[in-house]
């Protein structure tokens, strides 16, 4: 039993090398890469063209004249409000919102998952079901009552309010992830720690949390993506000084009766997506591992 070597998928192991089947396999995988990359190609290629090339047709072709001006414009010169600030100032707003919201919802999800698996009590499963169902509520529906509640709580138009909203609607999924992950975590370890005299929080902090890396990655990727890309809440519950990136991007892209600078739009669009892309590329390796450890197990 050679560890790491005997783990081969025997079915796959049989077909290593470059048989015709293998070539077809790579071809198919390559074709799907094209499918997934295509929109990115359209965006990237048009973000380095002058506008005239785009409006005169040829939106799919490579630029005749390469230019980085659209990128510069999207970053710091483009008009997204009365002042030509580009997207730059909004980046910080988004980060100020995303980081606490992701952190809070992840921690709450972890604690909930811990309680629901290791300290389950009568009715806790029902409570979990109720939490989970909350994931399915359409956001358009909660807009007005949420605005009212934020007003009542004095959080209207503040970053804290936005963070709160995202935490509220992030709890369901983060709890789901952690619950499934902790369900597979050996309960004996928790019992042993109890006997050693560790309390509720100490067990969580010292025993479960240190081994929660993979599922935390899944949860963070999920929450980060959703919150960073959210437009509806970001637009509705922010103030003039806390509008997130997506609102600025939307303002850049959607102008009603003005000239549309598609190249700048695409540059801005890619720019706005960079943080999430980065998260996917950096944490992507742990992603499948995390899913494997948590969410796909019954």
């Amino acid at each position, binding site marked *: 039993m050679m560890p790491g070597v*005997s783990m*081969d*998928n*025997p*079915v796959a192991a049989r077909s290593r090398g470059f048989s015709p089947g293998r070539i077809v*396999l*790579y071809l198919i*995988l390559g074709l*799907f*890469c094209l*499918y*997934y*990359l295509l*929109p990115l190609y*359209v965006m990237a290629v048009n973000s380095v063209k002058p506008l005239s090339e785009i409006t005169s*047709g040829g939106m*799919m072709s490579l630029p005749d004249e390469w230019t980085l001006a659209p990128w510069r414009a999207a970053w710091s010169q483009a008009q997204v409000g009365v002042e030509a600030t580009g997207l730059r100032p909004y980046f910080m707003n988004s980060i100020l919102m995303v980081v606490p919201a992701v952190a809070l919802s992840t921690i*709450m999800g972890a*604690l*909930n998952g*811990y309680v629901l698996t290791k*300290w*389950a009590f009568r009715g*806790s499963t029902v*409570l*979990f*079901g*109720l*939490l989970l*169902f*909350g994931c*399915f*509520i*359409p*956001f*358009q*529906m*909660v807009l*007005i*009552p949420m605005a009212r*509640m934020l007003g009542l709580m004095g959080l209207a138009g503040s970053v804290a309010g936005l963070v709160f909203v995202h935490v*509220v609607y992030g*709890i369901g999924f983060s709890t789901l992830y952690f619950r499934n992950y902790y369900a597979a975590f050996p309960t004996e370890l*928790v019992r042993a720690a109890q006997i050693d005299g560790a309390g*509720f929080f100490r067990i969580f902090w010292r025993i479960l949390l240190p081994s929660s890396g993979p599922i935390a990655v899944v949860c963070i990727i999920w929450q980060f*993506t959703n919150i960073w890309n*959210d*437009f509806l809440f970001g637009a509705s519950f922010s103030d003039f000084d806390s509008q997130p990136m997506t609102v600025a991007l*939307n303002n850049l892209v959607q102008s009603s009766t003005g000239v549309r600078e*598609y190249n700048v*739009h695409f540059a801005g*669009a890619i720019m706005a*997506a960079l943080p*999430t892309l980065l*998260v996917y590329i950096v944490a*992507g390796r742990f992603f499948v591992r995390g899913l*494997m450890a948590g*969410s*796909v197990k*019954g």
Partner: protein
Amino acid sequence: MSQLAGASGARPMDRLRDALPRIVLSPSVAIVAVFVYGFILFTIYLSFTNSRILPDYELVGWRNYHNLFRIRAWNTAVVNLAIFGLLYIAICCCLGLFLAILLDQRIRAEGFIRTIYLYPMALSFIVTGVAWKWFLNPGIGLQAVVRGWGFENFSFTWITDGKMAIYTIVIAAVWQTSGFVMAMFLAGLRGIDNEMLKAAQIDGASSFVLYRRIVIPQLRPAFMSAFVVLAHMAIKSYDLVIALTGGGPGTATELPATFMYSYTFTRNQMGIGAASAVIMLMTIAAIIVPYLWSELREKK
């Protein structure tokens, strides 16, 4: 696991300690009680009022529901959700599974390919909607390019065709999430006992039979997770439709989410919007609740 046994309630500290798990869970429960279930009740109430631009609390009975079902766009939206939801979930699952199986064949550069498949999930449709719209547009997109290669008869005009436009929504939506589903299935495949695959090999199962009869049935938890994620996405699909077709041509690609938004916010008929939200929630509940019930009960 139950709490540590012991003389409960002997001292206040002990009682506090016993209650700790509930105390930790309670903020979430309270939040969800108010911000999900409270809002649902509020919406149900609104659906019986004549609310227009802002909530109004005067009851008008069933009028909004009555009107709702007379609005043609609502029927279109419901039918579209059925078509879209079914196709979207089915295609995502099939494609995700297919790609996961391919990627599970000890592929060189697996990590790289996986990232490519996964990245669309990172982009919002505010971002990619325009790109998709162009790509699908017959005049400048795929059709134009293929015709440019010399295939003059090639035709791809779904987005302009009221009957086919909903399928372009499916294409773009599948593009966005199938990579994520692939990752879930890949994780599921990696979790299957290796000895089982050997056993099947000795039993003489071909790769096809192996996957069909042994591997795929074991991916049930992965299917279920994918279903929850996909169902939730299908129901909430809004940005996608707005960015791609704006609900058109005509009302051909209207979905309940866009309908609800449009009646609540654009048309100032909040009462009808609320009624549509209630119907939609009931539909979701009818599908999700039995699923949650069976999943959660089974684990006991």
